[in-house]
């Protein structure tokens, strides 16, 4: 992605660290439920409260989800160990975090974005989440609050931290990376990807430089971006801030910054001037995880198709079953930009299987894709359960002209909620197709009633086709098929 969102002569360099909560039944090192939103301090035990004498035992499912993420990101899955990262903080019950440090389970992968650009993945490692702190009194933020309250329900929830290479060059690309990564995490079953619930949290490392040949500039880390929009805005703001500093002859100071969504700017965190020295050492209470080839394969076999492959599948479906303009080897047309958007929507919403199966049931791919991305997508949860044969039946009626687009929408809405036979639903709504004779006489009558307009249409003013179609629709209360009306008008014009 060459696009830059910066003033000419500047390039931003961005790397993202994404913390993803894993969708396990229990926490990383204890059997407490891993659920969001329960009453405070109810999902806790000696282990996740860090009580004296308690010991961690590693959750197998968390390891396998981490391996699944690694596989999906094309990582090498390696023997790994856990370290203690020592620092004091009230939401961390042991005052150290158990995290994979110099031997992470996944290294050296990559993520291909929809635009074809590739971002390197340095590592994707397992670690435990902290508890949740609420700041009471004052503004509700950390600064100015007079005390804080800690809930340890989240303490020990399994996280995979995915660290990208500094390969990202624009805010747009940063956003695309996070969106694609979220889609991959959801597709692997590792995460629900809910940024608003904090199950996916993004930190951005941002620096700027004048030329791709320059060494990396001093970077700032923006913590805890909790929406794709915030991510893009924060990266854009921070890069511009750094460019302005440098253009004014000042220096960028390496620091951690916070994104203020309301003010639309990043702010330096007021952190105590004590050098962070995490005193990492191997966690003596845990033993190494050494996945053998058989285990790695077994996990890989559980993976479904990933978003990139699913998008490619739909693109191929369009080109082989497409509009037929013949500029691709398969004989179909390359997808239009609008269709690429539809494909992205359908894949994001998990409706791609529906599209594939509906096309297989005999409906043209462009129509299936359009209806899936636009109409079916209004209720994706129901649409994912839609019977492809019924959906194909409905779209077939549209293609043959026996139902109008408006009628299709009405039938689909009911089909989504109740299921059943689309023809029967159409009939129950009185949507039986107009007989051809009725259409011919209706059109003829309207032409006779509007001789001036008809004359202009006949003389080549094609806009009047819409005028006559509108009249027909009004006269038939929408039952007429638009395509059939247009065909009749053309026939009459001769």
């Amino acid at each position: 992605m060459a696009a830059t969102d910066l003033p000419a002569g500047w390039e931003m360099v961005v790397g993202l660290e994404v913390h993803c909560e894993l969708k396990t039944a229990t926490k990383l090192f204890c059997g407490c439920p891993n659920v969001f939103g329960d009453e405070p301090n109810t999902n806790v035990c000696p282990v996740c409260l860090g009580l004296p004498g308690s010991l961690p035992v590693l959750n197998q499912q968390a390891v396998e989800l981490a391996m699944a993420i690694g596989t999906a990101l094309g990582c090498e899955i390696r023997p790994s160990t856990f370290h203690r990262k020592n620092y004091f903080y009230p939401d961390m019950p042991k005052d150290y975090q158990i995290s994979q440090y110099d031997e992470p389970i996944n290294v050296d992968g990559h993520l291909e974005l929809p635009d074809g650009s590739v971002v390197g993945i340095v590592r994707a490692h397992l670690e435990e989440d902290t508890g949740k702190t609420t700041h009471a009194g004052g503004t509700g933020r950390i600064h100015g609050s007079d005390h804080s309250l800690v809930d340890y329900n989240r303490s020990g929830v399994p996280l995979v931290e995915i660290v990208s290479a500094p390969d990202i060059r624009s805010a747009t690309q940063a956003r695309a990376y996070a969106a694609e990564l979220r889609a991959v995490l959801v597709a692997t079953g590792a995460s629900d990807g809910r940024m608003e619930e904090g199950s996916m949290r993004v930190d951005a490392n941002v620096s700027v430089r004048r030329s791709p040949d320059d060494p990396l500039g001093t970077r700032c880390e923006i913590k805890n971006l909790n929406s794709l929009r915030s991510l893009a805005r924060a990266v854009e703001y921070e890069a511009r801030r750094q460019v302005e500093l440098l253009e004014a002859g000042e220096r960028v100071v390496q620091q951690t910054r916070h994104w203020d969504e309301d003010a639309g700017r990043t702010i330096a965190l007021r952190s105590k001037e004590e050098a962070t020295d995490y005193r990492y050492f191997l966690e003596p209470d845990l033993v190494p995880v050494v996945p053998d080839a058989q285990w790695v394969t077994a996990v890989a076999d559980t993976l479904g198709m990933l978003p990139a492959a699913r998008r490619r599948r739909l693109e191929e479906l369009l080109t082989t079953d497409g509009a037929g303009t013949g500029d691709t080897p398969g004989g179909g047309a390359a997808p239009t930009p609008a269709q690429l958007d539809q494909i992205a929507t359908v894949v994001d919403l998990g409706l791609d299987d529906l599209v594939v199966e509906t096309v297989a049931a005999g409906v043209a791919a462009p129509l299936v894709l359009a209806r899936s991305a636009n109409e079916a997508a209004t209720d994706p949860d129901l649409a994912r359960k839609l019977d492809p044969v019924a959906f194909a039946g409905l779209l077939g009626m549209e293609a043959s002209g026996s139902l109008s687009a408006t009628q299709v929408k009405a039938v689909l809405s009911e089909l989504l909620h109740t299921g059943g036979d689309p023809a029967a639903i159409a009939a129950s709504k009185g949507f039986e197709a107009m007989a051809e004779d009725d259409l011919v006489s209706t059109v003829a009558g309207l032409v006779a009633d509007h001789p001036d307009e008809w004359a202009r249409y006949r003389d080549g003013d094609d806009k009047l086709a819409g005028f006559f179609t509108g009249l027909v629709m009004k006269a038939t209360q929408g039952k007429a098929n638009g395509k059939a009306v247009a065909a009749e008008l053309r026939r009459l014009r001769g």
Partner: protein
Amino acid sequence: MPGRYTITRDDVAHVAELARLELSEAELDMFTEQLGAVLGHAADVAALDLAGVPPTSHALALTNVLRPDEPRPCLDRTEVLVAAPSVEDDRFRVPSIMGEAP
């Protein structure tokens, strides 16, 4: 190598800060001397050439100790909170946190 295997008063002050301990001036002197003596004794370890010797962190070489992802009973919240020095709204109450987590 006496210069290396010793600890200065500033070092002691620094580690006390890292460890969230506060030392009086007298304690600083005392601990500097005592820790210096212990580290001086450890000079035998420092003097060894152990390049290429792998570290031993665990007494026994176990791998892949895992548990099934099955829920276990949690503690009763009352029993948890009764141990806490300060509680508010069923949460652990702490004085104002000045800085963000590092």
